[in-house]
């Protein structure tokens, strides 16, 4: 069985724009779930509102498409009622960081046994390109026409601080590493966040000189710096290149988790 069997073939092609990274992330997530040997009946995908949250509609397992930002609250409910189910949450940056911010912090704090895959495309793509908490400084969106002047939310650092058991960040270009990270997240009991930076050529790239899909992929490829290399540069006191983001596994620990079947 391959990950392609997890798709609802009658629902494809997806509604995503050409070159959207969300499809890649679903591929990687399903591949990880498939190699673990989980069954359709025991796996449930939960999502909120947004482009990323359309994902469970294309997967043949049971799923919940919930209210905006509240996917983690619903997933916590599932995990407490039926701890034997495997819960995977697909969510976006607007869903997780902006509207569901508090749910996110407290799901990390409670360490509920679930895997959260956050497709961070730096913008609210579905509603027309409004700036989100993860929009980089200086980026042009419909709500920040002169460039965003706000600080950027670092979701991975937030999850580490709030007490999640496994936190990793990759991009939609690094498919193999992303699959391995999701696999590690699914195996870890307790809360696991995998933040995936994806391209959004329609809402973000079009306004920020990344119009072609290859431009954003090139950006993700050249601006990602591995966590180990970043730490080495800092330890040696060498300058870290500007506007790079770290990728890799930030934390993996064994704090007491909630909702783990006995």
């Amino acid at each position, binding site marked *: 069985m*391959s990950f*392609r069997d997890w*798709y609802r073939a009658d629902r*494809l*092609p*997806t509604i*995503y*724009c*050409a*070159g*959207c*990274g*969300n*499809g*890649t992330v679903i*591929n*990687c997530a399903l*591949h990880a779930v498939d190699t673990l040997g989980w069954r359709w009946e025991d796996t449930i995908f939960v999502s909120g509102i947004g482009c990323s949250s359309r994902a469970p509609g294309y997967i043949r397992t049971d799923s919940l498409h919930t209210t905006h930002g509240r996917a983690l609250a619903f997933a916590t409910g599932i995990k407490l009622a039926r701890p034997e189910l495997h819960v995977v949450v697909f969510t976006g940056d607007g869903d997780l960081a902006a509207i569901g911010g508090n749910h996110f912090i407290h799901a990390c704090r409670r360490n509920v046994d679930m895997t959260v895959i956050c497709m961070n495309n730096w913008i609210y793509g579905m509603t027309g390109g409004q700036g989100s908490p993860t929009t980089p400084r200086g980026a042009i969106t419909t709500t920040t026409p002169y460039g965003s002047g706000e600080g950027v939310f670092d979701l991975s650092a937030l999850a580490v601080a709030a007490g999640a058991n496994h936190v990793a960040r990759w991009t*939609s*270009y690094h*498919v*193999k590493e992303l*699959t391995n990270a999701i696999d590690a997240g699914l195996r870890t009991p307790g809360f696991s966040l995998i933040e995936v930076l994806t391209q959004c050529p329609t809402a973000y790239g079009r306004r920020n000189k990344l119009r072609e*899909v*290859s431009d954003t*992929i090139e950006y993700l490829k050249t601006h990602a710096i591995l966590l180990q290399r970043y730490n080495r540069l800092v330890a040696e006191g060498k300058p870290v290149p500007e506007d790079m983001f770290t990728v890799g596994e930030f934390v993996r620990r064994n704090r007491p988790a909630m909702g783990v079947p006995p």
Partner: protein
Amino acid sequence: MKLAIDSSRCKGCNLCMLVCPYRIFKEGKEQNERGIILPELDRPERCPNCRLQKLYGRTLCGLCQMICPDQAIRWDDEAKNERQKVEVEF
């Protein structure tokens, strides 16, 4: 096995062109009936996955299939007694 692009799913983003280490995908020229320019295959028999997938019993490289956001890339079995071209790059 042979490489195939599902023309009903592909949206022409050319991500496969970016990641294939063998440069099997190249930019297409003609639009299909949905107005999408599909990538063309340049000697797909060079793909190691086509030759060795059955032998090893697993997907070897598979980067194009994993990165394809529209699940349009697949490997098909050959028909019985179908003639196969073989090309190996060193």
